[in-house]
């Protein structure tokens, strides 16, 4: 597990509203991020990046209170920033520097002595897989390498908490797997708490233990992933003979979530315990023949779809 005290919250938001460029980006958000690896999930524009930037002190909430590692964001932003690492979504580097100078410079900015910062820079660059390219100018890096160096600069001062904003953006499948392995390793073997913001459900499911789901600036679900996946809903794979679209519409009218897949199989989310019987009853009523009905394991995608759908 990520830390010995897994239930202790590392970030708490209490009724936080953030207005960003005249738009309400976060609306009365209350959430608790426990120690360990937490996924911050939501579609584009849900307010994930805004939340991280607010926690960094870049944006000031109009209402509410935020604490990070037990410190108030409004009164102790510098103390907080000395203990967290931030990997931004967009590319960012100091112009004209090679990788090792850049990462060491970030270490010094975070308060490390020059010699220690340089030593740590070499270590973290090896750790993120840029050891061989550490003397290259950052501007010549590929997209995947830029993602890795952003992680390196966030890690160099050994933070207690990492904010990772879409860390796999623009990476090829192999690079993405390696990045997720790093994230998993940091959280589960190196005892670094992290908040992984992503719109990619598999990324969060792979690396995180808990999740906070945001949609339209509001928290629509939060908790341990396993618990959320097992809660309230049964998921079935369903194939029918008959008018599939009409039956899907009927299912939705009856309050079931229904998602089309690439093949002719639907994934149906049924609330409660007696889902199979309910589906058969509906099929009988609608004069539809059930050709295939199999209980399925709920994925984070199902949780996400339900949470966002409910909203």
């Amino acid at each position, binding site marked *: 597990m990520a830390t010995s005290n897994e239930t202790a919250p590392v970030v708490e938001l209490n009724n936080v509203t953030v207005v*960003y*460029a*005249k738009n309400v980006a976060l609306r009365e958000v209350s959430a608790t991020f426990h120690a360990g690896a937490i996924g911050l999930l939501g579609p584009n524009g849900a307010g994930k990046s805004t939340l991280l*930037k607010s926690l*960094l*002190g*870049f*944006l000031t909430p109009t209402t509410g209170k935020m604490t990070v590692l037990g410190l108030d964001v409004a009164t102790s932003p*510098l*103390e907080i*920033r*000395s203990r*967290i*690492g*931030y990997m*931004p979504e*967009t*590319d*960012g*580097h*100091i*112009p*004209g520097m090679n990788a090792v100078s850049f990462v060491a*410079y*970030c270490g*010094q*900015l*975070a*308060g*490390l*002595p020059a010699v*220690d910062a340089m030593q*740590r820079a070499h*270590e*973290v660059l*090896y*750790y*993120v*897989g840029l*050891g061989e390219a550490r003397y290259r100018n950052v*501007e010549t890096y590929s997209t995947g390498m830029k993602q890795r160096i952003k992680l390196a*600069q*966030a*890690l160099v*001062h*050994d933070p207690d908490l990492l904010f990772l904003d879409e860390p796999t953006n623009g990476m090829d499948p192999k690079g993405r797997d*390696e990045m997720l*392995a*790093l994230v998993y*390793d*940091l959280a589960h*073997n*190196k*005892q670094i708490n992290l908040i992984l913001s992503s719109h990619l459900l598999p990324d969060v499911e792979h690396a995180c233990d808990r999740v906070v789901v945001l949609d339209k600036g509001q928290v629509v679900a939060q908790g341990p992933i396993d618990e959320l996946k097992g809660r309230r809903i049964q998921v079935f794979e369903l194939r029918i003979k008959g008018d599939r679209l009409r039956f899907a519409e009927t299912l939705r009218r009856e309050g079931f979530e229904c998602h089309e897949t690439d093949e002719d199989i639907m994934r149906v989310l049924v609330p409660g315990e007696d889902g199979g019987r309910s589906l058969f009853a509906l099929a009988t009523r609608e004069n539809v023949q059930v050709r295939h009905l199999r209980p399925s394991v709920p994925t984070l995608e199902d949780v996400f779809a339900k949470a966002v759908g409910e909203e």
Partner: protein
Amino acid sequence: MPIHDQTYRRYGGRRDVVGRAWQVIARNGILTMVRKRLFLALLLAAWVPFVVQAIIIYFSTNFAQVSSFLAVTAERFRTFLEWQQRLPVFIITVWVGAGLIANDKRANALQIYLSKPLTRFEYITGKLVVLGVFLLGVTLLPAFLLLVLQVSFSGSFTFLRQNLYLFPAITLTSFLQVLLSAFLILALSSMSKSSRYVAILYAGVMFFTDAVYGIIYAITGSSSLSWISVAANLRQLGDVIFRLQPRYSTPAAVSLLAVIVLIGLSAWVLERQVRGVEVVS
């Protein structure tokens, strides 16, 4: 498992207290510039007027014939600083200052900087120090060295005793030049992602305001509107500080107000522009 898994260790060493990051920024900025040979050549060239003045002081203090037409007076120090302001200060300001923030904005570096334990004030201070060090290095430092040379060559403190006000005058004039130039270029630099554009804009501000004043003076024959020109304000204040007859009819207080307003405006722009996020309304 990630590659090189064993290389990551938790850090248990010393951490500096918060509030010193500006020194890191300043040191890095200065080292970055002095690593450029062309820039070093420019710095050396900026000291050529000092060498010329040093030779003049040497001859005027040692040869009576020369001192009759090249006497060392307080005005010589004022002339030296004015010449430095006219060319070396301008070139160094543009060369060093134009990209100080613009390049960071182009590379999205502000979010990196400001996610570390430093304030926007510290970031701006670090950048100001970079420019300030080089500008004071071609104004305050050579002017004081000239004073030292004057004492050394003449072998007496008579000139210094008679012109003690030169110490605060040189300091004040140099700092006024440096502060105005540094704030102005940093404010412009914070408004763009292109250092070339900033350089052109700064040159435009300096030359355009001077040209507008020149045209008005040519038409009206009055120098009462010299406060329009950024450079003229510095010249006017320099004259007053060095106890010389002011060359423009604008009151010194108006010139000082113009300079203060420009610095205040630049600080306001910096406060608006240097942020971890870009807010587009």
